[in-house]
């Protein structure tokens, strides 16, 4: 059994062309990730059947949903769609919203089971959307989408309309629910924490095209090109030049006057892009330990910026470099703009892209 097989081109009236070419597994959550306006929602709408691709095909579980001369209407695709701000029916209470897609006997009980599963407190079942909080509304939207037992769940930025505490709380629950349901799901987000927390696989959409698709850790740690690297949050993307092959699959490059050792991806010839994720960089002060595979660069702190519970430290190592560290260690290292510190990272964390 296969999941989604997408290979199509679509465009909104007067909008840019969006191309999608990737496939998903028959289960698990695939994240459509990319900056705002990249075309993620357009792809999702084409899968739902709310937009009709200009050419190409959409297949699910071996069934053709759209192709030349074929277009299965949205009503018959049996997808559950969760909109960005819920799009709940304002004239119906939570229970009737959840029961909307159900027909026949026992639909009330099935709607209540779905609300229960989505974690809406019983006391809120009789309330209308205007009387619910943002988080409660998204739970109702989720319940409404899963109640009719869809074959595929589509979620368009399901948490982006919530404030930070509600978002983080619901994110954990959403992950649990998606695992429990075992439904294949396609989730649109521009938030990489959300992507990492919820996704099994990921497709990166930039400027109207899917630029890379694969297992989520693979995409995050081995971006296919500089745009993908920037989008998934490899904070450091700098030009580098290959200076020496060290054997054991290691290569030394020069970037901003520094010598950096990384893993040779093959096909590297002269110019390269050096990618390094902020999470991989640790900050140390004092005597270096001897370790051949470790990079240790003397840096100057240029800026400190809070990022959730962590602190994002912008560094100048001859090239701009980012590190993430806890607020505690920031204080212990007495980091202030202008102070000097050593940035350490292992060679395998250095991702080199041929250019």
């Amino acid at each position, binding site marked *: 059994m296969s999941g989604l097989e997408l290979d199509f081109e679509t465009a909104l*009236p007067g909008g840019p062309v969006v191309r999608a070419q990737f496939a998903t597994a028959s289960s698990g959550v695939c994240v459509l990730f990319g900056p705002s306006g990249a075309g993620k929602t357009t792809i999702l709408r084409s899968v*739902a*059947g*709310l937009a009709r691709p200009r050419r190409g095909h959409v297949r699910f579980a071996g069934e053709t949903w759209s192709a030349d001369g074929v277009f299965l209407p*949205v*009503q018959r*695709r049996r*997808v*559950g*769609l969760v*909109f960005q701000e819920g*799009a709940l*029916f*304002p*004239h119906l209470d939570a229970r009737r919203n959840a029961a*909307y*897609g159900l*027909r026949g006997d026992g639909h009330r009980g099935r709607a209540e089971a779905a609300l229960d599963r989505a974690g809406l407190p019983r006391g809120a079942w009789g309330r*209308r959307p*205007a*009387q619910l909080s943002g988080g409660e509304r998204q739970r109702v939207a989720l319940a*409404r*989408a899963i109640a*009719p037992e869809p074959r595929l769940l589509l979620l368009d930025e399901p948490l982006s309309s919530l404030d930070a505490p509600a978002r983080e709380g619901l994110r954990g629950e959403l992950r649990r629910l998606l695992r429990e349901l075992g439904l294949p799901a396609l989730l649109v987000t521009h938030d990489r924490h959300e992507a990492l927390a919820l996704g099994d696989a990921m497709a990166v959409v930039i400027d109207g095209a899917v630029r890379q698709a694969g297992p989520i850790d693979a995409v995050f740690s081995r971006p296919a090109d500089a745009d993908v690297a920037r989008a998934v949050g490899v904070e450091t993307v700098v030009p580098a030049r290959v200076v020496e092959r060290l054997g054991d699959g290691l290569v030394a490059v020069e970037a901003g006057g520094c010598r950096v050792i990384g893993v040779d991806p093959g096909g590297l010839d002269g110019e390269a892009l050096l990618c390094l994720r902020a999470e991989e960089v640790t900050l140390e002060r004092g005597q270096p330990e001897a370790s051949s595979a470790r990079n240790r660069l003397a840096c100057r702190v240029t800026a400190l910026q809070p990022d959730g519970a962590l602190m994002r430290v912008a560094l100048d190592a001859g090239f701009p470099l980012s590190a993430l560290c806890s607020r505690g260690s920031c204080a212990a290292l007495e980091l202030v703009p202008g102070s000097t510190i050593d940035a350490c990272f292992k060679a395998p964390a250095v991702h080199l892209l041929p250019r």
Partner: protein
Amino acid sequence: MIDVEALTLTVRLAATTSAMLLVLGLPLAAWLAATRSRARVLVEALVALPLVLPPTVLGFYLLALLGPRSAAGRAWEAATGALLPFSFSGLLLASVIASLPFAVQPMAAALSAVDRRLLEAAWTLGDSRLRAFARVALPLAWPGVVSGMVLSFAHTLGEFGVVLMVGGNIPGRTRTISIALYDHVQALEYEAAAATAGLLLAASFTVLALTFALQRRAFSPLAAGPR
């Protein structure tokens, strides 16, 4: 005093006109609210024409179009044995056209204001377009639909020019209250004229005030209910 025969005829005409505009105007309003067709602006302009045209112009064209010398007029005569002009049916047709913008514009505005994503959500949950319209668009837009019907009712109550051109002034058949008022003034029956005018004013004001009150009640629980 007040011409009761003319009054009953007018109320019957206004009520039938509103009912017909619900049947004809609602699909038209739904189309205007949903379409991306280029023909939309032309249809909107056509619907709004009775707002700006002198009623006599509209009446003249209807008379020419429906009279015994036109194909449509002859077909109607062959089918029913009666002529459209100077009959209640002709008057009804004229009133429906003259009141079209008063019904269609509020209905279309209310239907356009319904978030399209709500309809899309209903489609993904298995509803056909018609079913989603009935279950989502109409319940959310009904104050606009009621407004359209009330406004067309009130407008037909007071219509004069078209009625005079198409209907003439036949007591019990085409003589409406506004024409009765005109006759009273012509005959220097100022007391009857004042009573008729006062009644029309009071009726129109009451109907409009009721509509606005209804709309407030309909929208407020959705906008900000108690938490």
